């Protein structure tokens, strides 16, 4: 990516936010911004970057927006008179909460989650429809449809600040979803795909720059860094999954771990605790252990006990069982697991079988463990995980 491209990508959401704030109408503003970006991509490399690139883009996009109006209906022509009374580009440019403004707009509750994700990557991340489609392994037309429909729905919606806390929670969920999609993708076709993990971290950093005191925003950024730190060791050379306990820790990303630990330590000391902070704290305990045996499982269990109160859910329950078994032994863990499995949300879930298999193996029941690994392998929707579970079962064959 050239310097101009990088600059344009960084400025695009800011310019879009400025236009939406001024004129409303997300879709027409986005068209205008696209045209301004195209003009800049043509002119800047030849004529040089203007002194105030953001102001230049806002002025150019505003003109395009007005030209669109000019070609529209008579009713809109009357509105144009009002807009022209205020010449574009004169208004002081606010750079304060551009990312947040756009994120809140893209994550409106009226949109479905897949639409929120697609629109966020498009409008805030500046990815093309083709890049988003490749990242999610769906045809470009599907993503294009989601984005245009989302824009239709946003037509006429006003930006207001009243329900921010809940909507900020939706923004964090969308960012985490983008991260998870990237993090759990197998490395096989990574070359042709946009790195959603890096994109999610970049957007969360931008959000944190605008909301540095929000503990959950900081917690989410820390969680992403502390999780992504392990990515180099998550799979072996053949692409097979390597469980945490067997990972080569020298391959973990030290810089990410240091930054993540610093962020989460700061957040826990200064803000009310929340689910992202607790998950980040758990990731930090794993990342700080020199080897698997040195992991402070008692600390992790305490954190899961807290998480179960703050944000209960079936996956939290299961992960807590894993920590419980590490502290109290596999047999006690199996009792705890049987109790957890009574939750209807976990009925037939392959993770229950996978954990049961592991605990049976640790307690010396090879035949039971093998059957449970195979049961889990038949139910997972992940090919790499299926391969892993099948190989665990194969090792127990007598």
């Amino acid at each position, binding site marked *: 990516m050239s310097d101009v491209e990088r600059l344009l990508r960084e400025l695009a959401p800011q310019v879009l936010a400025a236009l939406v704030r001024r004129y409303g109408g997300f879709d027409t503003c986005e068209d205008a911004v696209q045209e301004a970006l195209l003009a800049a991509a043509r002119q800047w490399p030849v004529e040089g970057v203007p002194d105030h690139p953001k102001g230049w883009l806002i002025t150019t996009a505003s003109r395009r927006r007005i030209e669109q109006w000019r070609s529209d209906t008579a009713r809109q022509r009357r509105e144009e008179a009002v807009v022209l009374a205020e010449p574009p580009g004169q208004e002081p440019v606010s750079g304060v909460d551009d990312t947040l403004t756009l994120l809140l707009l893209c994550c409106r509750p009226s949109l*479905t*989650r*897949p*639409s929120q994700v*697609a629109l966020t990557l498009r409008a805030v991340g500046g990815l093309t429809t083709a890049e988003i489609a490749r990242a*999610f392994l*769906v*045809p470009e037309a*599907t*993503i294009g*449809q*989601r984005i245009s*429909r989302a824009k239709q729905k946003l037509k006429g919606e006003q930006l207001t600040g009243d329900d921010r806390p809940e909507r900020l929670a939706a923004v964090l969920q969308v960012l985490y979803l983008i991260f998870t*999609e990237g993090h*759990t*993708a*197998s490395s*096989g*076709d990574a070359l042709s795909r946009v790195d959603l993990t890096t994109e999610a971290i970049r957007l969360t950093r931008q959000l944190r720059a605008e909301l540095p005191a929000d503990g959950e925003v900081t917690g989410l950024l820390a969680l992403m860094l502390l*999780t992504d730190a392990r990515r180099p060791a*998550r*799979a072996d050379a053949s692409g097979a*999954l*390597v*469980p*945490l306990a067997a990972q080569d820790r020298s391959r973990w990303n030290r810089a990410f771990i240091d930054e993540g630990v610093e962020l989460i330590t700061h957040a826990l000391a200064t803000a009310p605790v929340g689910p992202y902070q607790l998950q980040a704290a758990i990731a930090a305990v794993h990342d700080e252990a020199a080897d698997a045996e040195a992991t402070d499982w008692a600390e992790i269990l305490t954190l899961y006990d807290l998480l179960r109160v703050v944000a209960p859910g079936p996956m939290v329950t299961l992960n807590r069982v894993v920590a419980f078994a590490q502290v109290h032994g596999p047999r006690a863990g199996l009792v705890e697991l049987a109790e957890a499995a009574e939750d209807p949300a976990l009925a037939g879930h392959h993770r229950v079988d996978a954990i049961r298999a592991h605990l049976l193996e640790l307690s010396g029941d090879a035949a039971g463990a093998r059957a449970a690994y195979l049961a889990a392998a038949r139910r997972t*929707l*992940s*090919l*790499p*995980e*299926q391969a*892993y579970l099948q190989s665990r079962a194969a090792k127990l064959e007598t």
Partner: protein
Amino acid sequence: MKYVVLIYGNPESRKAWEGMSDEQRAAGLAYYQQLNDDLDASGERIVSERLAFPELTKRVGSSATDGPFAEAKEFLAGFYLLDCESEDRALEIAAKFPEASFGKVEVRPVMGLHGPEL
């Protein structure tokens, strides 16, 4: 999440289709067209196809025999590949296919390359 919806026909559903008037058949096709339009508008339909009747089925491999396979009690009549938010949503869509009431409709998740944290 990606799901395949498999739509099966059977001799009864086939007879019902063949016994329809032109108007009824057109209405049936229009119903499917509307479903497709709705699924396109929501960005949930990746691809769907209606398959030829089993008369045109050819089998390959060691058990290869020549057709026709029209005697088959149950045959695949069409499929949808959907990308939707949850299994519940996929089931909701599948229930809208007319075959759900007089044929058979199956929903199956697609395997992915995503590996969880182990």
